[in-house]
């Protein structure tokens, strides 16, 4: 790297080459890149699985697969997208950008950083191995319980479940380690003069995400260990015959599962204000409001989990509590929406790909949030729960967030990472295909859900035919859009118009003060913030 000359201290230690460089690296940029590549790979794997599902659902009847195999695909899709794609993508962004945005030379705990990444690939292999073996007729196939792994089904099912349990342990370990690193970095490594309330929203969002993960991931790890004990060591945590309770699992799972939604949202809520501000050429609106809203969401998110369980049966008091507390979350979210819109309001907007994705996120996630409100109604929820209405709702909440939001971030910082501008025309095309295909896929699912189609079924009654067809067509186009994305990124890595240090006219922040591409080591001397 040319930066070796600039940063004399590189001469002290030898830079490993080839695969070893990536295996032993403790550099936050290398690790961030690996996280992002890993996340995109898993996005492709999870996406391929759901395309098989959509192909099966294109028509009624069983065409391509048996129900057992279908259940494996649906389950792996969920687990892979949440733990393999969404969370590593966020961690990748954090790794790359946190030190650059708070003026730190690297993450606080570089070796831990290396380890938290390298736990991931074995975990993914662990999760998928039974699936691959199953294709060759070995074993019982992958975990097939849905990503929620409800007991006692998860106690009864084949040994794909055991693999999933250990994979969840490893994935959880990886997130906890990465989260500790984020917290320590933010609390200790900020540039001199950068007080907490001068820190970018990006850093606040990741701080809160990391704290959430440290709170909830150990609970899930404990929960899956209890399933493992029930499966193999004769305990009865989830077996009523031995004094246990199957619904206990749901409480444990959703104590992790609901905050998990915000673990996926908050990082993007950290990216979006920067993008909106840059392309509106106008300072961010309501910084304090956003920070307090993010903190409020973090606190509320661990208090509302049982709204996923209204049909499981619980007392009237509990239903009312979880209903009203869930509605409360709409307030800090409304603060965020208000600030996002007020940020570009009366700005001087231009519509490069990051801005398009950010605006797309604001609009589509808005619909995801609004449909969430009616799901909070404990009585009406009976009609939506576990129907396709719910599937459509949470894809509106998650896809615009973790995928479109992350893509906004990737396009925004690609010039900084690679030193080259990406192909703007293609990237805009990518955006429009994504938005149209996404709506084509999920709008019909609201309607089949209302008509009464349950989720996770491989075959359906004839009244659901047309909407499922439209949805499948949309899904395949959406899948194609991701191929276009990877093409644009590779093209950008290989070359293109050289990016300026400050790649965007309206960009603010420390990351735009370092050269493009960002040198291997940055901020050896920390900048001073006034």
């Amino acid at each position, binding site marked *: 790297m040319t930066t070796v000359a600039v940063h004399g201290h590189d001469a002290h230690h030898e830079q490993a080459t080839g695969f070893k460089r990536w295996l032993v690296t403790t550099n936050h940029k290398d690790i961030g890149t690996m996280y992002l590549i890993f996340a995109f790979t898993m996005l492709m794997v999870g996406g391929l699985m759901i395309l098989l599902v959509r192909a099966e659902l294109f*028509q*009624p*009847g*069983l065409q391509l697969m048996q*129900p*057992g195999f279908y*259940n494996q695909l649906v389950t792996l899709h969920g687990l892979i997208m949440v733990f393999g794609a969404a969370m590593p993508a966020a961690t990748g962004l954090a790794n790359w950008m946190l030190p650059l945005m708070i003026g730190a030379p690297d993450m606080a705990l570089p070796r831990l950083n290396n380890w938290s990444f390298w736990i991931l690939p074995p975990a993914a292999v662990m999760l998928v191995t039974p699936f691959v073996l199953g294709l060759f007729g070995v074993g*019982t196939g992958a975990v097939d319980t849905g990503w*929620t792994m*409800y007991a*006692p*089904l998860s106690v*009864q*099912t*084949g040994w794909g479940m055991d693999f999933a349990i250990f994979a969840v342990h490893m994935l959880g370990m990886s997130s906890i380690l990465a989260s500790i690193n984020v917290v320590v970095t933010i609390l200790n490594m900020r540039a001199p003069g950068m007080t907490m309330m001068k820190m970018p929203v990006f850093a606040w969002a990741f701080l809160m995400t990391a704290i959430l993960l440290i709170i909830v991931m150990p609970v899930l790890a404990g929960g899956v260990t209890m399933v493992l004990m029930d*499966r193999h060591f004769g305990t009865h945590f989830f077996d*009523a015959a031995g004094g246990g*309770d*199957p619904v206990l699992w749901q409480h444990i799972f959703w104590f992790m599962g609901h905050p998990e939604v915000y673990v996926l949202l908050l990082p993007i809520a950290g990216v979006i204000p920067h993008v909106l501000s840059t392309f*509106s050429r106008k300072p*961010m*609106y*309501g910084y304090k409001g956003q920070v307090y809203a993010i903190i409020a969401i973090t606190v509320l998110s661990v208090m509302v989990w049982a709204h996923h369980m209204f*049909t*499981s*049966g619980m007392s*009237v008091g509990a*239903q*009312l509590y979880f209903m*009203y507390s869930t509605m409360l979350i709409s307030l800090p979210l*409304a603060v965020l929406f*208000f600030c996002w*819109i007020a940020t*570009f*309001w*009366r*700005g*001087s*907007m231009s*519509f490069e790909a990051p801005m398009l994705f950010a605006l797309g996120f604001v609009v589509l996630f*808005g*619909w995801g949030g609004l449909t969430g*409100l009616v799901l909070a*109604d*404990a*009585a*009406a929820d*009976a009609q939506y729960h576990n*129907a396709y209405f719910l599937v459509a709702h949470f894809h509106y909440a998650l896809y615009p967030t973790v995928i479109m939001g992350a893509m906004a971030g990737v396009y925004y910082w690609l010039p900084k990472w690679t030193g080259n501008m990406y192909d703007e025309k293609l990237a805009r095309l990518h955006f429009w295909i994504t938005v149209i295909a996404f709506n084509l896929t999920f709008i019909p699912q609201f309607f089949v859900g*209302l*008509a*009464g189609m349950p*989720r996770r*079924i491989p*075959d*359906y009654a*004839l009244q659901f035919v047309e*909407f499922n*067809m439209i949805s499948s067509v949309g899904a395949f186009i959406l899948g194609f859009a991701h191929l276009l994305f990877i093409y644009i990124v590779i093209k950008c890595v290989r070359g293109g118009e050289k990016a300026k240090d400050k790649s965007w006219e*309206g960009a603010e922040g420390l990351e735009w003060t370092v050269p493009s591409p960002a040198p291997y080591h940055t901020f050896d001397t920390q900048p001073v913030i006034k």
Partner: protein
Amino acid sequence: MSKWRDGVRRFGLAIPMLSWAGVALADYTFNFPTPVTPIAHDTLRVHNLFMVIALVLFFGVFALILYSIFKHRKSAGHKAADFTAPRGGKQWFFVLVPFAALLYIDYIVFGIPAYHAVLMYEDTKTDAEMVVKVIGSQWKWQYEYPEEGIKFVSVLTTPQDQISNKAPKGEHYLLEVDNPLVVPAGRKIRFITTSTDVIHSWWVPAFGVKRDAVPGFLREFWATIDTPGIYRGQCAELCGKDHGFMPVVVHALPEAEYKQWVAQKKDAMAKQAASADKTWSKDELMALGKEVYAKACAACHQPDGKGLPPAFPPIAGAKVAAAPFLDKDGRLVKDGHLDRVMNGKAGTAMQAFKSTLSDAEIAAVVTYERNAFGNTAGDLVQPAQVKGLR
């Protein structure tokens, strides 16, 4: 109207993906099915109100965004303002209005009716006129009428040929069963659910109720069906391989017809009970056994008895189907054939059939399994034996 619809249909057919279905566009529905219970009426009302509010909010905000996008763009020469927070009382007022509106929508417009709806939903006991117990099992529903002593199992009747696309699909594809739940219209029915294996969820969209069947626990819900008719639904909680194939069908009858049905059903149950005491011939057992096998066993162990190993072991050639099922004192051999069928195997999908099959059905199906698929145990199980072993 019809011209408009024709136009839509032609347009639809012009798109090949739609014409493949060969199903009229008139099948589209954009809302819940017609509600027939108080809960479903209430849910539909909330849903419609909410959708209006949500769409107004969504398109209102979307319009603001679009306005900003077109008006405040650099290419139109708009110069950026630099405000970052509300300034002065008037601005604070406009900032706080949306939040006040949201609080009002959350806790007044929805919150208050939702409070009453939850109380209504959970009030299963007041004025309840009858009880029906709903028991989920992989992958069928069992219904019990404790006051009448009636109990039967309800399983999917859609032929395998239709599912595997070898035969054209019928009108109620996947939503048809052999023994539908029969209930009187106009009476408040208290449903009690539980499960024998994993969690299932009983759902009929027209009733607006969905409640999980949790093994080892009782859960309740209720319905007063205002219009006689046939209502269909499905299991709504992933419960294993055939989760998509355990529909719910409810026949709501006028009171008089319901009474008739109860009398008939009681009669049939009495005959069935009596049949346990007579000695059955091998042909009788094999004939009934074949029927029971198709309904209760074939989903996992397959119609040819070869199973789907390793999760679902074969019966053809299985050791257990040749070994003795009773010991010399006439007791069940632990993990023997009859024990497995009656009591299931813990921790697997093999369930205890003694609660869902009659004496004659258990005797017949075990006899059938021991003497079909190339198995040659040769022995018979008599219903009376099963009755004695319960």
